[in-house]
């Protein structure tokens, strides 16, 4: 039997992450990183934001966002390094660092959101 490749799964995660990132990250970043700190739009207070983040559905959303966005990065960055730097002898190291980073980040996100108080 032919050895099954992980590639379709990794590509699907990359693709799903790409869609999710394209739709929601710009607005999140615009508000959090620019509009709120610069006072263009009044930032939500601690209490209301905390209450929003307490909702299980919000935390599930945030977890899926982190998980997919990180695997999107891992896949795309891996191939950028392959193509851009042409360091074939380091391909395995790159593979481990990219997906390992994504797994680690997903675990951190899961821990932070699960233990959110």
């Amino acid at each position, binding site marked *: 039997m032919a050895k099954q490749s992980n590639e379709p799964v990794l590509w699907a995660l990359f*693709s799903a*992450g*790409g*869609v999710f*990132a*394209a*739709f*929601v*990250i*710009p*607005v*999140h*970043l*615009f*508000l*959090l*990183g*620019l509009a*709120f*700190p*610069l006072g263009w*739009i*009044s*930032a*939500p207070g*601690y209490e*209301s*934001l*905390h209450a*929003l*983040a307490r909702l299980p559905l919000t935390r599930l959303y*945030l977890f899926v*966002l*982190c998980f997919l*966005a*990180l695997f*999107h*990065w891992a*896949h*795309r*960055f891996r*191939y*950028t390094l392959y*193509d*851009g*730097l*042409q360091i074939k002898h380091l391909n395995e190291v790159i593979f481990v660092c990219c997906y390992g*980073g994504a797994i680690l*980040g997903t675990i*951190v*996100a899961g821990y*932070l*959101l699960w*233990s*959110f*108080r």
Partner: protein
Amino acid sequence: MTEARQTVGYTEYHPRWYRSRVSTWWWLTRWPYLKFILREISSVFVASFVVLLLLQIRALSRGPEAYARFQHWLQNPLVLLLNLVTLFFVVFHAITWFKLAPSAMAVRFRGKRVPDLFIVGTNYAAWAVVSLVVAWFLVRP
């Protein structure tokens, strides 16, 4: 398996392909190449946004003082500049992603292929709606 290997009898000799050496900086030579690499590099900023989001969640979880410190940190000019650059790349990611959408999913309706422009247009419309919904949740007083 071993039998087959014995009868085929490959030779060790293999001619070398001719490949001209490509510079590591090949992507700097033409604008489309550079655009391709910038598009791929946008993934780094997608990941760095996740880091920022996780820092916010951690601060939020630790209490009002920690969150106030986080908000103060966001006002640092260097952080603002970094967020501006990140925003440029994530918007670039979104635009290039939607541009590729018709090639990735060839939608057919009554046997005819839906025009590319329609698919791109729907993506932009959905982007606007999703952005408004997210903003509505975050901006409420």
